């Protein structure tokens, strides 16, 4: 069935409420584009669905095929078919892409994938994404350019074959040719499976390649408008100002800019970093 349902979702980070009652339903084989100005909750939405521990759900429900997603650990969410292609993929020195992916594939299957099948599949996907041939033996994202890291996320998606792929600004850092390549790879998997996609992007170019079936604008923690790919085109042409006016939404003041933080560091949260 592969139906993701989000109802009245409220999420806070530390003491700041980011999502303020968000509703969204994603059915099998749909492509949803999530748009909106920076700092209004797009990445928060994806990170919350995936279970980032910094994002606290204070109210609402997320279900996947009627299973309570919020009750699951992060790895369980992945195993039921949710995939997050990250905006800032982590570097993991010492762990090769090959070992990493085999562990990820084996984690979701009762039987381990055979080495022969794994290599064959990985090589084919490396070629499809025009990545370096030695990728399998390189450490995960270690020393990768921004574009290579994003392609590597897509490689992981192709190998893990999720039910719902959430792609957080996966097109940033990619040049024009790479954007086409990545979009083609995503659409190829989409055509061959029941995959549904949630994509956060600021660029109409990427969205026009993916041809979303639905488009949503997220402002101040809520979806304020939904439509189809024409809405994405209009936003690309006219920006968001018309939406603020039409819907009578007050713009955020600069001191309400997004919180920037990282897990596991002693750095204080930084507001408006200079």
């Amino acid at each position, binding site marked *: 069935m592969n139906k993701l349902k989000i109802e009245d979702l409220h999420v806070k980070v530390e003491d700041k409420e980011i999502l303020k009652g968000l509703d969204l339903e994603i059915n099998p084989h749909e492509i949803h584009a999530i748009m909106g100005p920076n700092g209004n909750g797009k990445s928060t939405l994806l990170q919350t669905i995936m279970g980032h521990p910094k994002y606290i759900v204070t109210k609402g429900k997320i279900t996947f095929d009627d299973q309570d997603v919020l009750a699951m650990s992060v*790895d369980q969410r992945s*195993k039921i078919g949710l995939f997050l292609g990250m905006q800032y993929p982590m570097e993991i020195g010492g762990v090769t892409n090959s070992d990493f992916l085999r*562990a*990820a594939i084996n984690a979701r299957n009762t039987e381990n994938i055979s080495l022969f099948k794994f290599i064959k599949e990985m090589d084919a996907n490396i070629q499809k994404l025009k990545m370096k041939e030695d990728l399998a033996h390189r450490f995960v994202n270690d020393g990768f350019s921004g574009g290579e890291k994003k392609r590597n996320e897509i490689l992981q998606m192709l190998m*893990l074959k999720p039910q719902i792929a959430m792609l957080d600004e996966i097109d940033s850092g990619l040049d024009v040719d790479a954007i086409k390549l990545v979009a083609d790879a995503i659409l190829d998997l989409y055509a061959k499976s029941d995959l549904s996609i949630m994509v956060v992007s600021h660029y109409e170019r990427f969205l026009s390649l993916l041809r979303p079936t639905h488009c949503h604008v997220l402002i101040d923690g809520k979806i304020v408008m939904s439509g189809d790919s024409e809405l994405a085109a209009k936003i690309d042409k006219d920006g968001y100002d018309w939406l603020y006016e039409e819907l009578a939404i007050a713009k955020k003041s600069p001191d309400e800019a997004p919180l920037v933080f990282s897990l596991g560091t002693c750095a204080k949260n930084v507001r408006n970093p200079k």
Partner: protein
Amino acid sequence: MIIELNQNYLKISDQRDLLIKVQSPEVHLDYEVSTDTRVIIINDTTKDLHLKESGFVTGGAELLIAYLDLNQGKTFYEADIKADKDSSLKIISKYLCSDQKKADLKYTCLKERSSIDIDNSAIVLDDASLELSCTGIIDKGAKRAKNHQSSRCLTVGKPKTAKIEPILLIDEDDVEASHSLSSGTIDEDVLFYMNTKGIDYNAAMRLFISSYLTLDERLLKDYPSIQDEIRKKVEQCLM
């Protein structure tokens, strides 16, 4: 060639390819190498080990020494090896610390264009301790020498001590030298990233332990039985 070493002293000179399973509690390996030589040393004692290495690599040769210590006892590892003109030394050392491991390692570039590259990895378990001092030395006169070292240490649980001292002593200009050290537990951001791909904490630990402790397959390609043995030992560590 595989040697099961039960004696206290072994002279190593130009044996090209050697795998030594150290079984004696006190061993001195003495190198005098002038052709490319590769030595893999595995701590195969049932209890404690005091391993001492000394010697030279000369004649433009390359000496590679890989040391693997998955033993559960205490280890004291001393090394003082020098590279002569145009010669090079490649050091790989890997430790699993479930007790007390101590290493005092010195590698010296003696003459022009000598080269040293050191790569230390360690996993320090709950209640265990590691004290590793690694000194790269470039002597006066060793122009255009290279002396690089990197060390990484992963702590699991609450070790007593996890101390690595990367030291460089340079007495010549016109050289290349570097040292790097990373030490700590698994980064939470990295763990979240792995979790998002379905890799839970235990599987993540397996990946890290395996990456820290497994010797490059190319080094062991001629020793398939040893490769299996090491794999089993690493797997035991994961239990």
